[in-house]
């Protein structure tokens, strides 16, 4: 399995990267860590004509505390974000979720922003961003904009990022209250069959479910009033899991209920 040919761009600045992406149009794709893109290319499921490699762009790897959360740059590797005390202090869920992402060798290269932009509904970090109500900062030829998580994920591996736009960073908000993430995977490090991230704050509780819809599914369970078994049923009513080789739809629904109750309890106790 070898990736198809492509024209390679290695810009040194964000401006050059945006220029190259804009010129490439729909044929262009950003290469950051490549841990999702290169497998797709090796399997010939993706064949972008032009790759814009941002690994040589300065200033994109930063992890910065900001008012009310932490901003993670497009070149910050999962392993760096996982190890970052700045990120942990602002939002401990980020580190806990990253430990469920693949294996260390993949986390050493893969980037957190890349995982979010890839928008795989089975992945952890899109669910975390959706749960927290974070945002993605992007830059295109017309300038910069922040896209709220609720508007960012539009379908399986689809986002509202426009052709020619480069994701510069994501913002994970701090959260009042406790958070947790739990999942069940066939093998440690695999994509989960089901998983739930939860946030429980005074007078409010919600979850984000992965692997049970085209995008991370956020469900507000405040009305359950701390009865997590009831919250689990609310979640099960809101999801539309599909069957695949790993699990039937019914099993995914069952798992998601169990995991929702578990994650909510853990978040409430945190």
């Amino acid at each position, binding site marked *: *399995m*070898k*990736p*198809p*040919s*492509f*024209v*390679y761009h*290695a810009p040194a600045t964000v401006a050059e990267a945006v220029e190259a992406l804009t010129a490439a149009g729909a044929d262009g794709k950003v*290469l950051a860590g*490549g*841990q999702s893109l*290169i*497998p797709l*290319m*090796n*399997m010939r499921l993706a064949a972008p004509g032009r*790759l814009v*490699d941002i*690994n040589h762009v300065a200033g994109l790897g930063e992890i910065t505390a900001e008012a009310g959360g932490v901003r993670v740059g497009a070149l910050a590797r999962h*392993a760096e974000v996982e190890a970052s005390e700045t990120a942990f202090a602002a939002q401990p869920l980020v580190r806990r979720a990253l430990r469920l992402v*693949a*294996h*260390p*060798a*993949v986390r*050493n*290269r893969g980037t957190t922003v890349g995982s979010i932009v890839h928008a795989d509904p089975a992945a952890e970090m899109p669910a975390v961003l959706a749960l927290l109500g974070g945002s993605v900062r992007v830059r295109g030829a017309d300038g910069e904009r922040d896209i709220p998580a609720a508007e960012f994920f539009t379908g399986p591996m689809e986002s509202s990022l426009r052709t020619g736009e480069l994701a510069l960073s994501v913002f994970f908000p701090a959260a009042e209250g406790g958070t947790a993430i739990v999942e069940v995977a066939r093998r*440690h*490090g695999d994509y989960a069959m089901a998983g739930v991230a939860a946030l429980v704050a005074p007078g409010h509780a919600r979850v984000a479910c992965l692997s049970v819809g085209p995008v991370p599914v956020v469900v507000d369970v405040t009305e359950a009033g701390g009865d997590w078994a009831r919250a689990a049923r609310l979640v099960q009513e809101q999801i539309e899991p599909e069957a695949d080789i790993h699990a039937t739809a019914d099993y995914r629904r069952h798992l998601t209920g169990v995991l929702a109750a578990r994650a909510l309890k853990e978040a409430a106790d945190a």
Partner: protein
Amino acid sequence: MHDVTLIVNGVPRHARVPARRLLSDFLRHDLGLTGTHVGCEHGVCGACTVLLDGQPVRACLTFAVSVAGHEVTTVEGLADGERLSPVQRAFAECHGLQCGFCTPGFLTTVTAFLRENPAPADDEAIEAVAGNLCRCTGYQNIVKSVHRAAELMAEEGP
């Protein structure tokens, strides 16, 4: 075509390759370093794991052109001349391999892991090798090898 120079096992190595050349193929085909094995070519099996600037990465999920100028350590670079590294000796001593296909990926992964965590608990040792597939050993002797390597490194010092 791109001129790519990498520092491989301490030595600058150059080849002229297309952008799509994977680091795994760059090492094997262009540099003749066939110690790095290629299994699944989509990041699952871990056989192609090499150290990029000291950290384990999947060579099959990395374009050589993208890491030009960086340092790469392959399984060929672990030994000190004729003397095998502690991790290599531990795998030999504990029978941590059978067919040997997956072994280069385990050796590089464990070498980096023990640098970070020189005295791992059993669950940490298991977690450390969880990203590498072995279809022969059943992993028991691989985990033993991780602990034995830690012992050897502690005995021999830095």
